């Protein structure tokens, strides 16, 4: 059955306009459909094509400061009433809870993301042939023994209504082509192509410059396999946005989630070193560091006009000139902290998921005063290591201690790239790292990267999110040799 927003809206209204609502303080209903198509290749073998259609609704009620939540994949007027009753029964009789909500504007709106080519309108056979042609091009090179390829495409529809009167329908599309290359002699060497997950249509994949990148990738994997192993020590690091996005995500994105600050995730994802009282005060990094949260960013994976509580999204400062300015909020978290409004960071990953405070697109702003390019930044660094592409990542439960690897590492001497090195991980503490940021590249080096699968919550949910950054320079960072660590 298609996602029938007119019928669903009528079902929801019949609950929201009924006398049942007198039993509770607030109610919201979210209908959600996710169409997902995954295609997997191992070398030239088409391993699997998986089409998933997930559709259902949830009812969330607030009663005496407690949330009750119920969901079902059966969408009827009766099942919505049953879900409402279950949600109420979860919380009726409980002692007064701590949940209050900020007062937000009421919206009646539709917002459909514009894409050039809806991935689900492109024939599967065309996608298969296109991926296979790329795999063929990759495997022509004797340096590439294996190539694992995947294409993940998502089309998301959400209809949100609440007892205050908001009524919002939205559609979003995202796509992630991914290619991992392997060279196995003399020992295993891996290299990722630079494709990234984006909030765009199939046009992103179709227009991606594979013909330019593939020959370079073949050279790079060979050079990486022959590269010398890094010597442990402290180095200046010039970090490309294709690597820095993940460091931003882990060390700034998650640690400035106010629900973590307020210990909501203490049993699972963890809390944060940041504090509510630190807003306007906590020195997070050098004065070069300016970070914004932005759910309106073009092609951002977390971009959307209204969040999953019907709050209009916005751009807001998180770190300004190195000082913590704001934390990310939803209605509950903002209210508990005495703020007047949520900054629109609520998200649920499926119809059956309890909406959580999730990350907007969190990005490092480029240098506004001068458009420093790669060559300029290499000269400023003089000696050090230039890192491209993401690899392994790990950070502690309060977001202090982190360790990242990467895709490609270059040794730099006197401002010149002299060759690849390998077996490298950088390890630091969040505030030490961002305070060591001594220069930020210009607009021309800015790139938006991201992930489909940021995890948080119990039961665990995943969220898509983008992070933009220019190329950036950090001084005196601890570098490990991963071979010596074992």
């Amino acid at each position, binding site marked *: *059955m298609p996602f029938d927003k007119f019928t669903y809206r009528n079902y929801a209204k019949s609950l929201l306009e009924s006398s049942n609502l007198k039993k509770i303080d607030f109610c919201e209903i979210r209908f959600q459909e996710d169409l997902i198509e995954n295609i997997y290749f191992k070398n030239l*073998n088409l391993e699997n094509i998986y089409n998933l259609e997930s559709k259902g609704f949830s009812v969330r009620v607030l009663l005496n400061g407690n949330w009750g*939540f*119920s969901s079902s*994949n059966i969408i009827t007027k009766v099942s919505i009433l049953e879900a409402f009753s279950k949600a109420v029964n979860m919380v009726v009789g409980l002692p007064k809870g701590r949940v209050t909500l900020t007062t937000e504007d009421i919206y009646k709106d539709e917002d459909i993301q514009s894409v050039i080519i809806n991935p689900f309108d492109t024939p*599967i056979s065309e996608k298969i042939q296109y991926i296979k042609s790329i795999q063929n091009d990759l495997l022509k090179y004797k340096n590439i*023994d294996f190539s694992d390829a995947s294409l993940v495409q998502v089309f998301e529809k959400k209809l949100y209504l609440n007892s205050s009167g908001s009524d919002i329908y939205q559609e979003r599309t995202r796509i992630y082509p991914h290619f991992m290359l392997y060279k196995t002699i003399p020992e295993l060497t891996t290299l990722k192509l630079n494709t990234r997950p984006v909030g765009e249509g199939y046009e992103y994949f179709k227009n991606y410059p594979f013909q330019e990148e593939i020959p370079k990738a073949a050279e790079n994997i060979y050079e990486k396999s022959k590269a010398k192993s890094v010597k442990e020590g402290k180095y200046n690091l010039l970090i490309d946005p294709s690597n820095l996005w993940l460091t931003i995500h882990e060390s700034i994105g998650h640690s400035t989630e106010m629900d973590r600050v307020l*210990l909501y995730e*203490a049993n699972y994802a963890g809390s944060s070193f940041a504090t509510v009282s630190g807003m306007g005060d906590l020195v997070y990094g050098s004065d070069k560091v300016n970070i914004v949260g932005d759910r309106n960013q073009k092609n951002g994976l977390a971009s959307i006009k209204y969040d999953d509580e019907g709050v209009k999204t916005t751009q807001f400062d998180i770190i300004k000139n190195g000082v913590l300015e704001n934390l990310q909020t939803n209605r509950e978290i903002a209210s508990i902290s005495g703020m007047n409004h949520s900054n629109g960071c609520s998200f649920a990953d499926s119809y059956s998921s309890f909406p959580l405070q999730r990350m907007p697109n969190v990005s490092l702003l480029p240098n506004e005063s001068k458009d420093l390019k790669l060559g300029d930044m290499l000269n400023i660094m003089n000696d050090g290591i230039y890192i491209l592409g993401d690899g392994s990542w790990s950070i502690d439960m309060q977001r202090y201690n982190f360790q990242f690897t990467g895709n490609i590492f270059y040794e730099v001497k006197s401002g010149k790239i002299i060759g690849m090195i390998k077996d490298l991980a950088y390890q630091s503490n969040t505030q030490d790292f961002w305070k060591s940021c001594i220069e930020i590249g210009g607009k021309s080096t800015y790139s938006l990267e991201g992930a489909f699968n940021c995890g948080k919550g119990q039961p665990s949910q995943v969220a898509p999110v983008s992070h933009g950054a220019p190329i950036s320079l950090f001084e005196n960072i601890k570098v490990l040799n991963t071979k010596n660590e074992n």
Partner: protein
Amino acid sequence: MNIEKLKKILEDNKKDAQYYAILYDNSEYNIRFSDSKIISNRVSSNSFVEITSILDKKVGVSSTTDLSEESVIKCIKKSYSIALEAEENEEYTPLIEDEKYDDSTENSLNFEKEVSEIEDYLHLIFNKDKRIKIFGYITGEISNISIINSVNLLKRTTIPRFSYSMNIKNDKLTRSVWRSDISSVSNIDLLKNIYTQLLKDYKYTSIKKDLDPGRYKVVLSPSALGDLLMYMSFFLLAKDADEKRSPFKDLLGKKVFPEYINLYTDPFIKDIKSIPFLIFDTSGVNPIFDIGQSLSKQNIIENGVVKGLISTRYYDQKMKYKNNLPTVSNLILEGSDKEYLDFIKDIDNAIYINNLWYIRSVDPITGLLTGLTRDGVYKIEKGRFVYSINNFRFNQSPIKVLENITSFSKSYLSTPREFGDSFLSSVICPYCVVEDFNLSSVSEAI
């Protein structure tokens, strides 16, 4: 929708395709609490059907949560159309024929009674001692899973799972302890026992000392070891090993570990129910033609020898492998007959690690992992916990961990901290002494 009706719809609409179908039905409740307050109460009922159509070795898979007949027919047609457009899968293997299995039950969640009982108990302990903050997560779920195919396979099972986790911190957030438990039956006594044990653990954190990073003799809890072994299971693919893409390359059949290392998987272990047939594999192998395959007790490491890796029927036939396994339904590391407390009494000097967290692969050649210690790092001296220690980042391969185990206790059912949220991730592991464990740097986190 039930499996009989689904079978009929499939037979009426399959055209010339072979097929298999999975019908999944789940009911669950979850309670989250933070800072001694309940923060969410969730109940959910979900079902989906997944249809795989196979046409001349070409495969299409489609699933839907809309179980109306009209929608299921659409799903069958979608899987058929995908198969039509697909290419032949070179690993095609004929479907499993004429197998039957049924241990399904009619059990359903009594969520209102159970939730009410849990919430009453939580409010009781929330108000007992205002100097501590209580956090945690409780979930109860019952999943019914049925599989049919076009060559007379029908298998059904019911997996109940009730898990309880709790974290206690002091009001200054300088001390933190965590425990969990899991069961196939709802049992609030497990939650009560966790609380009682945590109050004991909490006492160990009253004295805290700083320790520098380095390589230490450590005692890993079953949860900590379980997380490392769960991660290691991602390296166990036979094909990857043969292609030299895994740290297990060239290790099959070789004695790599001490002879007292015995690691196996067993869906019929009595401690916790697991799915007794293959529905998917979490480690990355593509078992598309093996869905429904019976699972049994299978050794991964036997007397220190790598006996079996994860593989498909296609690959085993091609390579003439005899001892591989279709998936890891749980992980069991054999321990000794020594109870936990007696085991600790024999340890003269070591660092105890309760949980590991944020574990990621660093080097696919060596299997090096990184991650953090969490919620319970203690110094053991002369058989006693004497004080707590700061947290660390570790860099350590799970293969090296197994190589460096020198003694262990009895094995206990446990939930790994990082992988514990999935009903596929039960572990039964001992407390074990591991030599030369690399605690690479200090983490300030509590």
